[in-house]
């Protein structure tokens, strides 16, 4: 290996210089183009008081009204939350939480009364919330087979390795495989309105329209198309270990059964943070005059299936109305108001500093 500074070309180079008749001399003058001479026309912005200070004021002036708007909107949103984990002995769900075991096929029911102080207008959204549940753990997040969920027959029979150790039981593939599916939330929540005259009216909970459109229509598909006999398609697979029912019995509605069951889809969209809420049901507004949920007493009936006490998790039920900007979110408004004020304040401070100490002979000298 001869890596050397010597280059035979250099040896050559000289003779063309000193030797007679080195050929016609090529003009080596570099081209006079704006690019090569670094004279490209250019915009050269400079941070001056004239540009920076107005920018601060403008940011302040834009952010503060937005913040106020957001804050007001957020305050108009009504939200109601019940923790039904059953940690407390006083809690109606205490017994269910205590007596839980995975083998229990019969579900335990607990009844939680609550009261709404204000009427909830327009559509009301019902969420379940979990705390200290690490849906964002790396091993959890990757433990799924999107190909299987997309209806691929091969993946149905032979789930991806990512699903381990929830890929198969006794050499039979699990459908849907993986830790996410296995841990699907399976409490059933029902809501009753206690009429002032003593009757308990069940409230109609819509279970569709709670998932992303792309999830429902693109990402999740039943194997063999939508109209196939799901029982037959899932023949040869087993249900996830923790599940009580196989995937093809999640719902009676064929449009909401199997992999395209929306509760399942919602669960499969993993949360970013260990405390999260997921949309459970929608209470549609059906009467233009009456509020969707009038003031009064309600009862939440929970089929308690989902154990969270082992890892100190919490379970909540949340009722919320929404606005154009979504649900209740006081932080955004406050943050905007704060940032806007800080900018405005900074603008004032900088203005003062600039006038007192600033280098003001800038422009005078530069023109010279």
């Amino acid at each position, binding site marked *: 290996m001869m890596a050397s500074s010597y280059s035979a070309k250099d040896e050559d180079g000289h003779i063309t210089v*000193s030797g007679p008749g080195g050929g016609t001399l090529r003009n080596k003058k570099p081209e006079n183009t704006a690019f090569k001479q670094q004279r490209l026309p250019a915009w050269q912005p400079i941070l001056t008081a004239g540009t920076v200070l107005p920018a*601060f004021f403008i940011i302040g002036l834009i952010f503060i009204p937005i913040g106020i708007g957001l804050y007001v909107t957020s305050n108009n949103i009504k939200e109601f939350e019940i923790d039904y984990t059953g940690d407390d002995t006083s809690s109606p769900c205490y017994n269910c939480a205590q007596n839980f075991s995975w083998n229990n096929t019969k579900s335990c029911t607990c009844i939680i009364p609550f009261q709404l102080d204000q009427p909830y207008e327009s559509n009301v959204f019902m969420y379940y919330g979990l705390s200290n549940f690490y849906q964002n753990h790396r091993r959890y997040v990757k433990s799924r087979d*999107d*190909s299987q969920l997309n209806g691929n027959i091969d993946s149905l029979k032979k789930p991806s390795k990512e699903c381990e150790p929830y890929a198969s039981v006794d050499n039979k593939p699990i459908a849907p495989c993986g830790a996410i599916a296995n841990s699907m939330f399976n409490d059933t929540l029902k809501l009753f309105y206690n009429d002032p005259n003593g009757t308990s009216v069940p409230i109609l909970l819509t279970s569709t329209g709670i998932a992303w459109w*792309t999830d429902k229509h693109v990402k999740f598909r039943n194997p063999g198309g939508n109209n196939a006999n799901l029982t037959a398609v899932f023949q040869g697979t087993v249900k996830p270990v923790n599940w009580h029912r196989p995937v093809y019995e999640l719902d009676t509605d064929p449009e909401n059964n199997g992999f395209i069951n929306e509760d399942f889809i919602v669960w499969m969209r993993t949360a*970013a943070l260990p405390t999260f809420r997921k949309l459970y049901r929608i209470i549609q507004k059906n009467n233009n005059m009456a509020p969707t949920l009038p003031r009064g007493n309600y009862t939440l009936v929970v089929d308690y299936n989902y154990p969270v006490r082992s*890892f100190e998790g919490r379970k909540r039920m949340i009722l919320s109305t929404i606005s154009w900007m979504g649900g209740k979110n006081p932080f955004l408004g406050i943050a905007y108001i704060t940032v806007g004020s800080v900018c405005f304040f900074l603008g004032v401070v900088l203005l003062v500093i600039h006038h007192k100490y600033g280098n003001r002979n800038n422009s005078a000298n530069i023109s010279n």
Partner: protein
Amino acid sequence: MCVCEERRVRANDREYNEKFQYASNCIMTSKYNIITFLPVNLFEQFQEVANTYFLFLLILQLIPQISSLSWFTTIVPLALVLSITAVKDATDDYFRHKSDNQVNNRQSQVLIRGSLQNEKWMNVRVGDIIKLENNQFVAADLLLLSSTEPHGLCYIETAELDGETNMKVRQSVSVTSELGDPNNLASFDGEVVCEPPNNKLDRFSGTLYWREKKYSLTNQNMLLRGCVLRNTEACYGLVIFAGPDTKLMQNSGRTKFKRTSIDRLMNTLVLWIFGFLVCMGMILAVGNAGWEKEVGSLFQSYLAWDTPVNNFLFSAFLSFWSYVIILNTVVPISLYVSVEVIRLGHSYFINWDQQMFCSQCNTAAEARTTTLNEELGQVEYIFSDKTGTLTQNIMTFNKCSINGQSYGKDTHTTCRLDFTPFNPLADPDFCFYDDKLLESVKVGDSCTHEFFRLLSLCHTVMSEEKSEGELVYKAQSPDEGALVTAARNFGFVFRSRTPGTITTTEMGRTVTYSLLAILDFNNIRKRMSVIVRNPEGRIRLYCKGADTVLLERLHPCNQEVMSITSDHLNEYATDGLRTLALAYRDLSEDEWEAWSESHRFADKATDCREDRLAAAYEEIEQNMMLLGATAIEDKLQEGVPETIAVLSLANIKIWVLTGDKQETAVNIGYSCKMLTDDMTEVFIISGHTVQSVRQELRSALLMWALFVFLSRRARERMIELSRRRGGGVGKQLHGSPPPPPLPLSNLMDNISGEFALVINGHSLAHALEADMEAEFVSTACACKAVICCRVTPLQKAQVVELIKKHKKAVTLAIGDGANDISMIKSAHIGVGISGQEGIQAVLASDYSFSQFRFLQRLLLVHGRWSYLRMCRFLCYFFYKNFAFTMVHFWFGFFCGFSAQTVYDQYFITLFNIVYTSLPVLAMGIFDQDVPDHRSLEYPKLYEPGQLNLLFNKREFFICIAQGIYTSVVLFFVPYAVLSNATQSNGVPLADYQTFAVTTATALVIVVSVQIVLDTGFWTVFNHVFVWGSLGSYFIIMFALHSQTLFRIFPNQFHFVGSAQSTLLQPVVWLTIALATAICIVPVLAFRFLKLDLKPQLSDTVRYTQLVRQKRRKPPEGRLGARGGSRRSGYAFAHQEGFGELITSGKNMRLSSLALASFASRHSSSWIDTLRRKKHTHTPPSTSGECSPETNQIK
């Protein structure tokens, strides 16, 4: 068989020589061929630490328990980097192959079986006899067997080998030189036994065995590969070393790889970042252990541990590696590639710069190294050669003083004289501007005639007359050439010479003088004389020499002329001209006879010949009549004084290192304004002993310290005075403005003195010794200008090394000759002037151009910009990657330290190579803070580079801090907003994919806004890249999240639909805007404050500074203000020994041959050769350039 001890070569016997398996003459500088390219190149690339590190990461990622990222997030950038480098290597190697082929396929004539045949160079074997013709390259290292010239002599030019442009003589062993023609040579079967291949260019030892006789061989018999045969019709040689064994190839070692200080800093920082990475990994691993113990173990019903993991400690161990993988983007692999790309771009800008193009020599500036550009913006010391670098090495006859009358005016005032009507033999290139002198010649003024007669007779120039009237002078030194040419134009034309005669044409009349003696020049005598007999039989001695020695030897009657002439001499010297005084003496026949006898006696003496000759010369060079004086301009290159002034305003210290004599060097120092008459003191160190040098250095330092002390005291008192006076005035005149501060500062500036140091080569040798170097450095650095004269090439390098060692400053060496190579190589940056002296210096250099004045543009414009751009690039790059990566760290606390990434893996893959690479590259290549002419106008703008202000550890930490701050904002703002937010249809926004898209978009927008803030020069490229990158982010994201891709690879594109459902939400955009504002507003405020209150780099303040500087620029034209000390700038640049050659007739034959070399200052070696042949007992003397021995003999 052992061949390592010696080499045996038998002529014309291929079978015999093949036994030893000597290397063939095929050279291969290429590294690869088609088959080996991939493995070898990959192997080489993986020797780079960075590449190996990424390979290691890649392997880690293949372990499923660790892999926190898909394999492609690392392999795509790595493959990109590797392939870019591979393509570059491949092109380089392709060109090497091409040039190898070209060289290997050159034809040479080889004697095979008694007849000459054409063979390719690569087929030449050791032991072959090859024939070389004039101007051919020597194909291999040959033993010269015979030549067409008498005595087996031949001439070679070794410029390619050692850079010396003069010709050298080689002679064959006498027995072989008789062989002559090919027929005899075919039967030559001598055997050479010699040393094995080595890289010593000036040594060879071997023995030729032929016909039972031994002949010893030396370097004098060798023709080395790389030389060119000159002035010799043809010669024959025996191949001794071929191909890689040749001395040329043995000498071409791997060049020392130069690194810039930013490189070194970058490597340190990268190491620190690795440390930081490990720390982060540790913290997160500890967190993981805690989490798995406290939470994860309980959470197992939903999330079982991976199979090999059975306790939390093992899990923490794996998590450490997982985090190393995802946090590795703090040291992005693209950093190194981007830096290379930027430097390459800057190099092209240097190559393309029209203002560094010299139209006379048709050469553009060339960045021969592409890795040093930003260091050009940090230079503090420039070491410059003089001849050919500061000066053009062209001497012009500028003024003269004849018999008390001075001739010659400023070149601008009158038009150039036209000599042709008066003198058909005149040299058309000669310029003179004073017609009075020509008038004086025409009217026949005897002094003027004698003056030019002297110039036409007293010299050692050779003439060549190709056709009638077409005279070419071959002068040993350019000054002599200038003088003889001046005489020629004024009608005293030197035509030809023989050992005993000189023929001239005087005013159109041919005259032949008989040359009786040449009293040669040497360093001590500082003069030369000739003794001639004119056709009328009168004997006259003509003498020219340094005024200091000549004026002492005049006849007393010259007093009056002498005083006028010495006034003129002073005047010339202050103009920086090189002067000679001229005188003659009439000798009677008797005097001549007597002296001739004593001279002959001295000449024949065997001991102390030199001394005796000098004494004899001294004896006759007395009582001379002064004719006048000449002044020769050592023409400075265009713009040298201005360049030096600008560079020193930029706080760059310039040292001139020259082989010239002290007087010449000091003269040049004055003429290029390095030394000025305003200087407080010019220290001259010229001691010969350690003690004296030390003493001189100490007293200089002491003087300097004393002066500084005094001036500081004076300054303090001045300030105090002015304060007191100002206060008093204020009391008396209420509200009147205080006295303007300008006069005070002016006074202060005048007090701070300027010093210069001139040191001689022999003193330098002592000063460079270990115990004195610190003293030398402190003295030299206290001075504004340093001139080292009579230094050897080695000393030049030593001086550079000294400063590198003691000063931690960036050094630049600039030179044009082979003697500058050592310093060019040892300085941080070497610049070669592509001038007349060969291309060796250029080949060794990192940058080359043809005019010294381009240096200011190279440093102040290109270097400054490069530094600025590189610093801005690095700051932004580190900021960007910390902002990008540290988000994972914060997320770790919320995802059970599981090494879950925040972003989509495609985003991680593409962030550095697509979404953010081009805007910062565009900034790194095109950014400018001030236009080029401004940075030349205000050299002070250069200072931040010297002080390392734009990118240092502090700046780095600021960038990192800003990056970490940004990452905090980028994580916690979406966290706070999204954790409770829902879409407008009630679906929560806190799902992982929405969070990922929001954070990623916010990140891309924030870093884009940041680059918008950082970019100071928005060319069309910046616009295209910035907006294009932003656009490409959205386009690529929508594509990756599209249904089409998901349908094809459902397992690869999990994020289907995320982009649209996220980015359609107003809350998401509000979040992004909020995060951007929180990230950018503090930066904006901080930058504004910095610019408004402490505008260090602001152009405006620099402008005011420079206005002040301009005002106190010293008034021009203080010439002649110096009194007292007289500088003698006598002009003799050549060595002694020529007179002898001429009179002995030795070089008469050479006159038509090798005279070109006389012009070179390095011409001593072949003369030495001839002289050594004459006095074989004299030890090989050191070449005349710097010979302390001669000085010490006296």
